[in-house]
């Protein structure tokens, strides 16, 4: 398989930029005369940039809006407001053939390899389906060969092109999903929890495959996951989300070694470390309570209801996601400060 044209482009330049993206799902009441009584603020003002060839990890607990963000970027949802530009083109304004071109450049790997593949289609049809829509991507005669190449690239046997999804294991199915995402030679792949449904020993195989494909094709990944260890392993930069907002963003080192937002610190300290001795040295932060409802988030800082540092200002003033004195990476906390790092085993 030949490398896509993008390999000649400059690594590290901004390829996707997202500016103040908002998605509110309306809550309506009434049977005949529906009126809106509120909104679930799933994504509430998110901005970030993705650079060519990098992996941006997005972490957060369920309900923080990370999957909605992925669906917005794929244009599976329409944003309430905000902008996103992909290589200079406005992602949300394009339509028709321009939208098809945009979509071709950005593909997605879904979470659940058991439900994201059509059980009635053969693997060849699943991976070749993008070529039905983007007919110029592979001329009809060469499709089968292209699909077999893709199977080979993701480490599956090209002879299995006529098999059905149920004949594959979970890890192999996720490889099929990855091959489908690669079919149109996109520059960006959005991975929404791509390994969380897999067993530990299979997880590592898929993570290694994703890293190897990134090197080979110069891909940029948006890697959404709740598993902080996996995200650290694969990401160059990491954004931490809480209730629809990014609360801290920085390089993998800044987020994991020098976090300044209390939520990031609590999240990191809660990760179970597979080493009984390292665990005893850690000082854990125990958060109390649950994540508030995104339909009715707290005023000011969304995290203040669970935060041990909360003061009056946290309820009245939204903390901005700006570089803080404690460490020069953006953190949305009025009282951003470093805490002793996790002990390394």
């Amino acid at each position, binding site marked *: 398989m030949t490398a896509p044209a993008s390999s000649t482009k400059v690594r590290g330049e901004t390829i996707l930029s997202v500016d103040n993206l908002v998605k509110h799902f309306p809550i309506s009441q009434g049977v005949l005369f529906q009126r809106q009584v509120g909104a679930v603020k799933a994504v509430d003002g998110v901005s970030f940039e993705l650079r060519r060839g990098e992996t941006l990890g997005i972490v957060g607990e369920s309900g923080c809006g990370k999957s909605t963000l992925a669906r917005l970027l794929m244009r599976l949802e329409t944003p309430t407001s905000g902008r996103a530009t992909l290589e200079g083109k406005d992602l949300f304004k394009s339509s028709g053939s321009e939208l098809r071109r945009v979509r071709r450049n950005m593909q997605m790997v879904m979470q659940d390899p058991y439900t994201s593949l059509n059980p009635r289609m053969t693997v060849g049809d699943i991976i070749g389906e993008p070529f039905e829509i983007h007919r110029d991507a592979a001329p009809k005669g060469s499709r089968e060969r292209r699909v077999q190449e893709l199977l080979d690239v993701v480490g599956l046997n090209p002879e299995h092109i006529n098999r059905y999804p149920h004949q594959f294991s979970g890890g192999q199915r996720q490889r099929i999903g990855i091959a489908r995402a690669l079919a149109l030679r996109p520059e960006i792949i959005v991975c929404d929890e791509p390994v969380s449904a897999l067993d*530990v020993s299979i997880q*590592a195989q898929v993570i*290694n495959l994703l890293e190897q494909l990134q090197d080979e094709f110069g891909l940029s990944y948006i890697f959404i996951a709740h598993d902080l*260890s996996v995200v650290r392993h694969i990401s160059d930069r990491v954004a931490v989300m809480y209730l629809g907002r990014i609360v801290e963003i920085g390089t993998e080192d800044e987020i994991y070694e020098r976090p300044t937002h209390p939520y990031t610190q609590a999240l990191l300290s809660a990760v*179970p*470390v*597979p*080493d009984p*001795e390292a665990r005893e040295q850690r000082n854990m932060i125990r958060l109390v309570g649950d994540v508030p409802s995104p339909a009715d988030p707290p005023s000011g800082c969304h995290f203040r209801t669970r935060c041990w540092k909360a003061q009056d200002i946290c309820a009245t003033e939204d903390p901005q996601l700006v570089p803080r004195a404690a460490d020069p990476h953006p953190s949305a906390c009025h009282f951003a400060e470093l805490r002793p790092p996790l002990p390394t085993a």
Partner: protein
Amino acid sequence: MTVQPTPASATPEGGHLLELRDLHVEFRTAEGVARVINGVSYHLDAGETLAVLGESGSGKSVTAQAIMGILDTPPALIRSGQILYQGQDLLTRSEEQRRQVRGKEIAMIFQDALSALNPVFPVGWQIGETLRQRAGMSRGDARRRAIELMDLVKIPGAAKRIGDYPHQFSGGMRQRVMIAMALALDPKVLIADEPTTALDVTVQAQIMDLLADLRRDLNMAMILITHDLGVVAGVADRIAVMYAGRIVEHADVRSLYKAPAHPYTKGLLESIPRMDVRGQELSTIKGLPPNLMRIPSGCPFHPRCPYVQQVCVDVVPHDLVLGDGRTSACHFAQEVRDDSAR
């Protein structure tokens, strides 16, 4: 069928609280016979926590269901073996006798609290159901006890929330309701099947803390079934690692993490990304877990094992005792452990 004593520790006076001896379970399906459990032996003493670790299909949950007597038979069939609770074999008891054990002596909490709770009844009623049915309590008493139990599992405002329905609770709170139900009859053994898998990390930490506190305060023994090597490290005393329906390694938590003595355990520990350790490429276990209808000859792990020799293909490895109460079902257990310790 020969009964192998579990060599992991000496039998205390009067026997173990719970002991499995050479359990074999198979599932008879249209496609053939899946041998899901192939000679599992483990034991549990009062107040200790045993973690049963394994990937999907390793037989860890089926073992628990066999102990509880909630396996669907057919398709499942317990071929042989014993499940001794306080010295009595549960498998020879009548269904009514087993019912007396279930919940009252051995209770279980399940992975997915939302589907394990009945959506059309308030949680208080569901916790109280056990008390009314089994302890013969009146409605009022059951309700009062349900509130106590909800307090015990630290559900805030228990008295106010007793009339709420499962959908009104968050995932973590639902799991607490499940725990309250399991504790209703003061069981001596609590089996927790992937209790935090569906939960977020911060909530997971809360639930694991709660389970550890309850176990200590109520002096329960606990079997924690999980696939998460991280979760186990914090709470368990001993670990039994399962693969293809067998226990391949059995050790106390510290020595297992320090120097795994089975290639499968070693591979698992090396294949998880560590947040506290930076590395390049993850090492992987090659291949796939076996199809349980066609378990490989000899050692079931041999097609995936980096230590494989001809003997592994020909001979089923028996538990090798490695001192300090550890066992490993590997022909090269010493070698693997020495490699890991390096």
